[in-house]
């Protein structure tokens, strides 16, 4: 029971990490690829804990294929339909992100790490 609780807590923290990461990208230009291959670019307006994304000044990348989507200007994208988020490399501090993921995945003190040492 405790184990399950720990798992949910750690996965929650993991989601929180990416939530925080996306929050640092607010105001930046990103491209969101949906699971139906539609790619929307726009300025990241906001993000929430489910990684739902709000974009402003939206453009459809394959405009000739999806002319009906040019009506999209400001949109809310449900996190569950997102396949990729493409980010300008200059907008990401990869070292900071790597450090953060390491910290998130390091076992708690007195946990598995100390057992492994024995």
């Amino acid at each position, binding site marked *: 029971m405790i184990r399950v609780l720990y798992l949910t807590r750690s996965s929650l923290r993991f989601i929180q990490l990416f939530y925080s990461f996306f929050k640092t990208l607010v105001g930046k230009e990103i491209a969101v690829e949906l699971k139906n291959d539609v790619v929307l670019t726009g300025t990241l*307006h906001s993000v929430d804990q489910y990684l*739902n994304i709000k974009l402003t000044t939206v453009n459809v990348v394959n405009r000739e294929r999806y002319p009906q989507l040019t009506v999209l200007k400001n949109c809310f994208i449900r996190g*569950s339909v997102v396949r990729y988020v493409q980010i300008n490399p200059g907008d990401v501090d990869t070292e900071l992100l790597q450090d953060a993921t390491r910290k998130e995945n390091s076992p708690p003190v007195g946990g598995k790490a100390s057992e492994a040492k024995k």
Partner: protein
Amino acid sequence: MASTLSEWKSKSVTVLTCDGRLISGTLRGYDQLQNLVLQKSHEVVYSVDSPPERIELGLFVVRGDNVAVISDGEIGIAKGVGGDDDDDDGGGGIRAEPIGEIAGNR
């Protein structure tokens, strides 16, 4: 910071569903799962070999699972059954392939 739909409440919105349909209507209600209540809604069906067709749906509840994208504004094709191909109000004369389904949603 949080992405909510509050700013679109009582406004016209267009919803792209997971099966690739476009439904416009007035957003009357929503919750944190993106379950939506749309009033006076209509679907616009696009196809390659005929002009867009407007289908009146009335009051519509969309379960959040089926929502892909929600956008402000509605698709402007002429009212009445079937869009006419001659108008130039933006959405009118567009012919397009249907939008694909969201893969692995079911």
